């Protein structure tokens, strides 16, 4: 009567390899959500492309904003566009060298271990910090009389609003992206590459400068582009620290310094101002500016994608 032994019985269909109904529903839900996610992204991009083409006129790119009440009188967004470029450039000029240096220290040195752990958690905190809090901090920091040369002062009261102040705080917004990506890139390089360099008699500094950083170039590029994306999408810092004044308000007539010490605006500040909830309330202008900003973000994303896919194709260390 060996046939009665449980081992010989076929397994019940529900417990084994077969997909139960709940599993099928789950898998279906995963498909649905995945496709929905793509659809939402596509909808946002296509919506802004359509609205942007409808409302963007070449004249908008070369005229300055004017505070007025109708679409025909409010001008374009030349200064905000330039403001975005200036702010992005200045913020990354601070964030990139600092981020690379921090990533190198965290990945290659990291002693004392206590400082490394503190620094790591602080980078994480800065990444999660709302930029409006950073803006408040910047307002207090650059309002200190000793830093008056970076903004304007009237009757001894330091304004604390300028391109310098905004760029300094926005560099903190971009910094975590650079650090995280460069660090990941450095850690992906196996230890034997470093050892080979040491074995040739190279110093650690030379190894970092000539072997590790060149090898981590794709990650540096990715981090820079992602950080730049963060910087130019920020609005809170622009409104509080750059003044959100639509056009450049130079601090004095010194050519470049006067501009950078003065207040201005970026595309994000311009969109916020022209949204129905803002003071300007010119949605057509907001759409046009949002279209330009979206193009910048899309370009940065395409850049990241091409770097990521290219670095996947190259030969891995082995």
């Amino acid at each position: 009567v060996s046939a009665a032994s449980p081992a010989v019985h076929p397994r019940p269909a529900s417990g084994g390899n077969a997909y139960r109904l709940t599993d099928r529903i789950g898998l279906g839900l995963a498909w649905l959500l995945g496709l929905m996610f793509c659809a939402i992204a596509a909808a946002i991009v296509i919506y802004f492309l359509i609205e942007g083409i409808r409302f963007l006129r070449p004249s908008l790119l070369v005229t300055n904003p004017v505070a007025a009440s109708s679409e025909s009188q409010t001008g374009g967004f030349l200064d905000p566009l330039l403001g975005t470029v200036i702010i992005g450039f200045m913020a990354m000029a601070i964030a990139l060298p600092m981020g690379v240096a921090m990533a190198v220290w965290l990945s290659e040195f990291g002693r004392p271990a206590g400082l490394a752990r503190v620094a790591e958690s602080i980078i994480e905190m800065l990444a999660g910090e709302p930029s409006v809090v950073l803006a408040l901090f910047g307002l207090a920091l650059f309002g200190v009389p000793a830093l008056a040369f970076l903004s304007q002062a009237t009757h001894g009261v330091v304004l604390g609003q300028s391109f310098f102040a905004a760029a300094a705080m926005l560099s903190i917004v971009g910094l975590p992206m650079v650090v995280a990506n460069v660090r990941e890139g450095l850690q992906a390089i196996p230890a034997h590459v470093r050892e080979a360099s040491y074995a040739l008699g190279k110093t650690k500094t030379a190894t970092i400068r000539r072997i590790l950083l060149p090898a981590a170039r794709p990650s540096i590029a990715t981090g820079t582009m992602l950080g730049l994306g963060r910087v130019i999408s920020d609005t809170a810092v622009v409104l509080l620290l750059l003044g959100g004044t639509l056009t450049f308000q130079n601090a004095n007539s010194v050519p470049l310094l006067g501009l950078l010490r003065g207040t201005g605006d970026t595309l994000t500040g311009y969109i916020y101002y022209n949204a129905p909830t803002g003071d300007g309330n010119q949605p057509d202008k907001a759409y046009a500016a949002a279209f330009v900003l979206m193009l910048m973000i899309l370009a940065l994303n395409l850049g990241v994608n091409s770097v990521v896919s290219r670095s996947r194709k190259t030969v891995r260390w082995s």
Partner: protein
Amino acid sequence: MDEDDFLEPGQGISQDQRAELWLGALVFLVVALLLALLGFVTYEAWPSFAHNGLAWFGAGGSVDEQIQRIFTSGDLKETPVYTFHAWPLIWSTILTTVGAVVIAFVASLFIAVFMVEFAPLWLRRILEPVVRLLASVPSVIYGLVGVLVLVPFISNHLISPSEKASVTPIIQLSGGSLLAAVLILTVMISPIMIAVFVDGLRAVPRGWLEGSLALGINPWRTFWKVGVRTARPVLVAGTVLAAARALGETIMLSMVSGGVPFSPNPVDGLIFLFEPSQPLAATIIRNNEQISSPPMKHTLYAIGAVLLFSTAMLSFIGWAAKRPMRRYGVVA
């Protein structure tokens, strides 16, 4: 090939030490910067907390009227008024954050599992850049979509005129609502969660999954029972980090949440979803022009300090929760 790339007796060592010192000093500077951030914001916030005590976090009176009084008291050079009860703002922050995090968690978990294990390769190739794109869309653009598309839709199609009439004495339902805020916030924080979840799920050792598959368990079950369970620390970390982002979201919420410091009450039934509110961060940006009045400035810094400490706490929890995953070699 410079001469100084190579070790000279004594000299090369000192070059390395110098580099280590400089880089370490820079890292120390950033640490000091964060301490300065904590110090400055707390210092500026102190008068507001000192005058109100714990009542700062409590309910009482209309926030709009309080802000008005605080602002004018600074302008007229009279004795500064600090009375401020932030509960409606805090409640609004809690509702939007919790709502968005709960929905985003479920959706992100499914999408992350799908991306790692079940999606065909072509779809995986699309989903990855899509996640990155949605994470990098500026919040002012999300706000613009909300205020020009979603808010009118809610106002015209989801709220019936009788519902509008039923609350007219108290509040106007114009579409800028909890529902709009939660929906857009969900889309904004999902990519952050998905990115962290995917990194964690990818790091689950293949052998563990194969062991389960070899026992005849189907792939779906295997991945949920073994993969997702192994990655639990990462799920916590991703959720907490996304919650920090949701808590600090400023611009989008100031555009779509209605901009009225009102506390929607879930006891009222589903209509509370359509009621406007105003979260903490949005309050700072909506009143940023009044910062010239000293008592108002201290009040805004107090709101900032609450945000600073709560997001820092969440980020720290997220960072700590991720650490156990190092065992499997994840450095996300």
